C-alpha cells in the first residue's frame, strides 16, 4: 500500500473517532458513536497491517488474540459497580503500552524512520522522552488508583512532610535526565527515566483520595491521551496525535467538571490531602443534637401519601448494590401515580456519570434522571426526597457555613422539600469528614440500615398498606 493512501486512511480513522465522541451527545445516538469508534480502530489496525514494514503476521495475530480475549472476558464479566476500578486498570495499560512503544522506537528507530540506533534525531528523542514520562506516570498512577478503588490499599489520602518538595525534586531530576538522555542517547538513562517516572506517578496519586477519586480518574484519562500524543509526535503519526489530543482534552474537561462539582480548583485537588480522618472533633461536639429515626413502614407510609418524590442516589447505593431494589420501590410508587425522578450530583459515585450507568442498569429510563441544575428548582415543590447512599452532596452547610471544608460546593437542595428520608448505615460523616446538618433538621427522618435491605423492606411495607 502506498504511503499516501496509508495516511489518508489514518485521516479517515481519526475522523471516525471524532464522530464516535460526537455520538455521545445523546443516549439515542451514542450506540452509533461506539460503532464509529470500533470502525475507526479496525481501519487503523488494518491499514497498519497492510504497510510494507509490517509482515510479522503470525506473532502479531497471536498477540492480538491473547490481548483481545483477556479484554473481552474482563469486559463481559465486570459488574457495573466496579466500573471505576476497571477504567483505572485500562488506563494503566495504555500508559504501559506507551512505555513499550517508546522503548521499541528507541531500540529500532529505523522502523519508524527517526534515525538509527545510537543516532536518533534529537527532536525525536525529546518527543520520545516526553511520551515515555507521561506513559510511565499514567501507568503507575492508574495502578495505584485501581488499588485504592478496589480497596487493596486505603482509599484515604496519604500525606507526609515535604511531599510537594519531593515531587518537585523528582520532576527536576527527570528533566535533567531527559536533557542528558537527549544529548548522549545512553541506554541506561532511558530506563532510569522510566523508573523515576513510575515513582513520580505513585507520589502524584497517593495524596488524593476519597471524594476526589472522580477527579483522579479523569486526570489519568487525560494523561493516557497525552501519552498517546507524545508517541504520535515521536513517530510523526498524525492519527496518534489527533486521537491523543481528543482523549487528552476529554479527560481534562471531565477533571474540570468534577472539580467544579466540588467547588475546588484542580490545583488543590492535585496537591491532595482532602478528606479522610480530619474534622472528627466536630462531629463529637455535635453529638448532643437530636434527630428523628424511622423504619421501613414509616417510610412506606410517607412515600405512598406523597404526590412527587425525588430520589438522590450516591456511592452508598452502589456499594450496597441497591439500584435494583430501589427501582422496584419506585415502580410501585409510579403505579400509585406518584411522580418519581432521580437527581444526580456531578460528583456522585467514584467516576463521572457512574450513577447514571447504575440506574440505567436497573432499567430506569434516562429521561427520569436529572442533573443538579435541572432538578434543584423543583425541590421546594416536592413532598419527599429520598436520599440513598449520598451524604456530602446534600449538606446544607455547604451554602451557609463559611468555616466548612465543603463551603461553596454546589449541593442538591433536598432540605427544601417537604420531608427528607435519609437512608444511611449510621450518623457517620461522609468522605469529606464533615458532619451533615441535614440529619438534625425537623423535616428529616433517618432510616438506618443497609440501602438494599431498606428498599426491600419498604417494598414489602408498600405492598401491605
Amino acid at each position, binding site marked *: 500500500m502506498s504511503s499516501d493512501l496509508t495516511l489518508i486512511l*489514518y485521516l479517515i*480513522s481519526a475522523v471516525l473517532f*471524532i464522530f*464516535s*465522541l*460526537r455520538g*455521545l*451527545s445523546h*443516549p439515542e445516538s*451514542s*450506540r452509533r458513536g*461506539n460503532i464509529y*469508534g470500533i470502525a475507526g*480502530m479496525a481501519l*487503523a*489496525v488494518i491499514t*497498519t497491517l497492510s504497510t510494507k*514494514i*509490517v*509482515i*510479522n503476521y503470525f506473532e*502479531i495475530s497471536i*498477540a492480538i488474540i*491473547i*490481548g*483481545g480475549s*483477556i479484554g473481552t472476558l474482563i*469486559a463481559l464479566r465486570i459488574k457495573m459497580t466496579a466500573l471505576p476500578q476497571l477504567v483505572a486498570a*485500562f*488506563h494503566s*495499560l*495504555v500508559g504501559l503500552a506507551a512505555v*513499550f512503544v517508546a*522503548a*521499541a*522506537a528507541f531500540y*529500532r528507530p529505523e*522502523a*519508524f524512520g527517526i534515525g538509527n540506533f545510537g543516532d536518533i*534525531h*534529537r*527532536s525525536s528523542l525529546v518527543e520520545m522522552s516526553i511520551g515515555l514520562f507521561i506513559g510511565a506516570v499514567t501507568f503507575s498512577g492508574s495502578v495505584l488508583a485501581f488499588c485504592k478503588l478496589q480497596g487493596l490499599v486505603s482509599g484515604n489520602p496519604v500525606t507526609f512532610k515535604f511531599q510537594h518538595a519531593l515531587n518537585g525534586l523528582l520532576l527536576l531530576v527527570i528533566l535533567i535526565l531527559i536533557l542528558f538522555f537527549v544529548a548522549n542517547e545512553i541506554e541506561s538513562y532511558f530506563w532510569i527515566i522510566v523508573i523515576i517516572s513510575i515513582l513520580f506517578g505513585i507520589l502524584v496519586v497517593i495524596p488524593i483520595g476519597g471524594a476526589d477519586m472522580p477527579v483522579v480518574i479523569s486526570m489519568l*484519562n487525560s494523561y493516557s*491521551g497525552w501519552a498517546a500524543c507524545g508517541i504520535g509526535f515521536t513517530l510523526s503519526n*498524525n492519527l496518534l*496525535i489527533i486521537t*491523543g*489530543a*481528543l482523549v*487528552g*482534552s476529554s*479527560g481534562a*474537561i471531565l477533571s474540570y*467538571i468534577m472539580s467544579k462539582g466540588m467547588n475546588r480548583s484542580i490545583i488543590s485537588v492535585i496537591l491532595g490531602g482532602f478528606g479522610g480522618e480530619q474534622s472528627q472533633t466536630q462531629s463529637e461536639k455535635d453529638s448532643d443534637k437530636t434527630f428523628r429515626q424511622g423504619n421501613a413502614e414509616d417510610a412506606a407510609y410517607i412515600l405512598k401519601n406523597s404526590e412527587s418524590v425525588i430520589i438522590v442516589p450516591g456511592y452508598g447505593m452502589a456499594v450496597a448494590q441497591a439500584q435494583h431494589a430501589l427501582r422496584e420501590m419506585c415502580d410501585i410508587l409510579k403505579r400509585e401515580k406518584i411522580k418519581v425522578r432521580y437527581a444526580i450530583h*456531578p460528583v456522585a459515585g467514584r467516576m*463521572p*456519570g457512574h450513577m*447514571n450507568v447504575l440506574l*440505567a442498569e436497573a432499567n430506569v*429510563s434516562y429521561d427520569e434522571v436529572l442533573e443538579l441544575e435541572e432538578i434543584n428548582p423543583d425541590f421546594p415543590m416536592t413532598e419527599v426526597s429520598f436520599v440513598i447512599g449520598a451524604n456530602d452532596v446534600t449538606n446544607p452547610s455547604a451554602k451557609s457555613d463559611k468555616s466548612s471544608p465543603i463551603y461553596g460546593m454546589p449541593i442538591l437542595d433536598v432540605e427544601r422539600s417537604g420531608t427528607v428520608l435519609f437512608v444511611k448505615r449510621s450518623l457517620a460523616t461522609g468522605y469529606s469528614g464533615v458532619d451533615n446538618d441535614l440529619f438534625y433538621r425537623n423535616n428529616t427522618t433517618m432510616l438506618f440500615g443497609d440501602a438494599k435491605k431498606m428498599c426491600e423492606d419498604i417494598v414489602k411495607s408498600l405492598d401491605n398498606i
Partner: protein
Amino acid sequence: MEIFEFTNSSVFISGLTVFVLACFIGYYVVWSVTPALHSPLMSVTNAISSVIIVGALYAAGPLDNNIAKIFGLIAVVLASVNIFGGFIVTYRMLSMFKKKTKNK
C-alpha cells in the same frame, strides 16, 4: 538560543499544528457530551487511546529477532486488552441507556 536543532522542524511544526487543532475539536466535541454519558465517554476514550497499537504494530512488524520486536508485541497485547475491553464495556453501558416505554 536553540538548545536542540530540530533537523526536521517542519515535520514537528505540522505535527504541532495538527495537535493544536485536534485539541480544539476535542474541546468542543466533549462539551457537547451529555453529563449522563460521562462514564461511557471515559471508557470509549480509553478504548480509542489504544490507537497507540499502531506504533506497537510497526515495532512488531519485521520478521527479524530484535528486542524492539518483543517490546512491540507486548505493547500489542496490552493495547488489544484495552481495545476489546474498552469497546465492549462501552457497548454494555450504552445498551442499558434506553428510554423505557410506560407501564413496564
